[in-house]
């Protein structure tokens, strides 16, 4: 090889060279479009070594034919693009683009019904995932009540707090909590028949039963359990028949002193299109909410996760993650995983700046919301017409709602006092300040009010 003037071609350049070469070939008169699609389309640049360009091809057939028929042409075109190239070589490799292709999994009838050969994680008798236990459940201020209530449920299933209704935003550990209850009850009493399902499963089952005229079997199916856990029950909205079936199931189980556990992302009163009779039944037992974890809890969660994985991370990075990522625990774990993965890839500790860069996308931008949106939600909450909040009226219930709207606009979304006043019926900014202070003061004493505000806040998510 006479590689005197030769400089190594970098991967990017190599890709460009091969691409321009392909373009020239596709226009070449001796290569038909069909031939190009068959022989050239799935080729890609692999490496360049001492003047030899190495091209990846999908299989031996193509390699063989490219060598036999097109090698001269390819080399000619390559030399035109880059005169330092001396020869070309073909390698059978897996296509890069192929690996990246997203392949949709089409579940067949069989796949739904037969167990896959891999060892199963989910227990088929109760549908619970054994990885959810209280050992891995971090208790903090944000979920203390939920945890305590769950323990009471475990002690006397069906007697304390029936039904048990957990609600809270996404990724805060509702599923973890209710599945842990199931696992724990089973651990303590093997005799108890437990079943966990998502509402969607229940709904699909119901639809199938109606389709196949097996509604009686369906009714029987769930009534034999001692503990029934239904996740994401908010999806029941607008499914009238499912609501009816759930209603009957609920009554049967409840009368038999069987424990029923629900989770939802909203308070039962705020699940849209929920029939009154369901609403009152959901509210009959214990309703607890899981709010967002505070800083200490987030640190504890991260710590537990790290311990579980058996790795360590610099304290300042942990601190950054816990303080900057707001909202769900799922996102928190996601960011932690991203950090761990990068550390592994780069084989060195990440600095705080790297981490900032990395989780930039995971940090939610400050929420922005328009005044009418807030007004809409608040008026919806208080069952008022949207318009009346803008009116100049001193009717008590309207004044209260308006004050809450002002408070939320100010506290959560940082809208300026004058702007709030202007938007809500041309009030002076001092009126707004007064309203906010008033609500703030009342919040300290009035538990009802603080619940209301919390619930309204939940509706923004």
């Amino acid at each position, binding site marked *: 090889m006479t590689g005197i003037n030769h400089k190594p071609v970098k991967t990017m350049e190599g890709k460009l060279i091969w691409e321009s070469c392909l373009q020239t070939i596709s226009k070449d008169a001796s290569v*038909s479009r*069909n*031939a190009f*699609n*068959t022989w050239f389309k799935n080729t890609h640049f692999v490496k360049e070594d001492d003047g030899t360009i190495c091209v990846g091809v999908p*299989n*031996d*057939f*193509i*390699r*063989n*034919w490219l060598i*036999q*028929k097109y090698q001269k042409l390819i080399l000619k075109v390559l030399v035109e693009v880059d005169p330092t190239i001396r020869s070309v070589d073909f390698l*059978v*490799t*897996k296509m890069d683009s192929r690996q990246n292709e997203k*392949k949709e*999994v*089409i579940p067949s*009838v*069989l*796949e739904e*019904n*037969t*167990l*896959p*050969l*891999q*060892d*199963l994680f989910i227990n*088929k008798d109760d549908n619970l995932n054994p990885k959810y236990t209280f050992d891995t459940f971090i208790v903090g201020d944000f979920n203390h009540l939920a945890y305590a209530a769950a323990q009471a449920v475990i002690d006397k299933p069906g007697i304390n707090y029936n039904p048990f209704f957990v609600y809270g935003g996404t990724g805060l550990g509702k599923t973890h909590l209710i599945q842990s209850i199931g696992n724990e009850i089973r651990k303590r009493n093997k005799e108890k028949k437990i079943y966990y399902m998502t509402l969607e499963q229940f709904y699909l089952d119901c639809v199938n039963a109606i389709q*196949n005229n097996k509604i009686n079997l369906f009714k029987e199916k769930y009534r034999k359990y001692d503990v029934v856990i239904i996740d994401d029950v908010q999806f029941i909205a607008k499914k009238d028949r499912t609501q009816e079936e759930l209603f009957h199931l609920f009554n049967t189980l409840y009368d038999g002193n069987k424990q029923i556990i629900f989770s939802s992302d909203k308070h039962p009163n705020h699940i849209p299109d929920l029939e009154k009779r369901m609403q009152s039944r959901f509210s009959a037992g214990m309703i607890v909410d899981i709010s967002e974890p505070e800083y200490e809890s987030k640190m504890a969660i991260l710590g537990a996760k790290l311990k579980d994985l058996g790795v360590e991370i610099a304290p300042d990075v942990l601190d950054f993650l816990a303080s900057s990522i707001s909202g769900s625990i799922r996102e928190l774990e996601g960011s932690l995983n991203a950090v761990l993965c990068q550390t592994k890839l780069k084989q060195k500790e990440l600095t705080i700046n790297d981490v900032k860069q990395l989780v930039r996308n995971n940090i939610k931008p400050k929420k922005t919301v328009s005044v009418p949106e807030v007004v809409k939600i608040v008026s919806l909450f208080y069952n008022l017409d949207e318009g009346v909040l803008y009116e100049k009226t001193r009717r008590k219930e309207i004044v209260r709602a308006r004050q809450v709207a002002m408070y939320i606009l100010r506290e959560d979304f940082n809208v300026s006092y004058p702007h709030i006043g202007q938007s809500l019926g041309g009030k002076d900014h001092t009126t707004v300040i007064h309203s906010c202070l008033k609500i703030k003061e009342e919040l300290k004493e009035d538990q009802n009010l603080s619940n209301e505000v919390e619930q309204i806040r939940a509706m923004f998510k």
Partner: protein
Amino acid sequence: MKAKVVCEEFKNAVLKTERCVGKNLSLPVLSNILVLVKEDGVCLRATNLSIGIEIKIKAETQEEGVIAVDPIVLKSVLSGLEGGMEIDIEETEGNLVLKTNKSEYLIKGVSFDDFPTLPQKSGEIFNIDPEDIALGIRKVSFSSSLSDIKPEIASVYIYSDANKLIFVSTDTFRLSEFKIEYKKDISFKPVIIPIKNAVLIEKLLEEVSGSIDFHNSGTGITIIGENIYISSRVVDGIYPDYRQIIPKEKSTTAVFLRADLSRVFKTVSTFSDRFNNVLLKINKEDKNIEIKTENQDTGKMDENIKASIEGESLVVNLNYKYIADFINNLNSEKISIELTTPQKPIVFRGVNLNNYTYLVMPMNR
């Protein structure tokens, strides 16, 4: 080109070659077969760029040459001719002319400039009886996955362990493993052959006599026999470590006659539901296996077959088609099944046949 061939041989070669013809590809020439007349015989070639084949037959060559023709036309012409006859094949103006003493056919030829050659042999050589490869593939190929989503399991996996050549295939709901034992230790480089190609190879090797050279370059395999040359793509990937899922313990073993089960299965299809679900109830006390199935539209059945049972009584649901596939391939009059729990795979074997193992996952309801 001009040559004289025996009709029967020519027809057989066309039938075999035609299996590898490519369809619906962007290169239309691949839907043809290439007829090459050489000094030492006539060679037929076809490929779909995943598998390619060349079959050689004896011929009296007068003039060498090449032509590509549509195999369907060629096949229909040859099937109309008497087997023992000799045919003159000749090219005139780009068309193929077949002449016997009674008849003459002209088949339109196609431009063959773009007709590819097959990859050259390369890589490690393994000399083997073609019947072994065909047998191994036949015994396991039915349980392979057919979807392209996971190419590594839409395949037959062949590897060697000490003195055994082992064939495996699975679709994640069932798995079959077949071992061929040799007198000496062998070293066969592991290969994952795509299922479509594996089935073709099995069919093509069935009638090959003598021994074949199995070349494996890691990116492709080439099989060279006396008059046959097959080249196939392989799957670039890692086969799942399936040995982990073969259960090591068992709580129940049942042995029964294959004939009994076959008899029951003839009617099972009438009464099984759309999931092909049957219930097997292994009764230790009654020394039998109860086979139950129910279909909303047709009714239900309940059959008993005698069995000798060790261990506990057990109930499992499974897809009867999976079992039927296995018993069709088994050369043993007695079948043994081993079970652990209703959630673990069920192991099927022929009694006294340790080289053939079949695993089926039970159904979950």
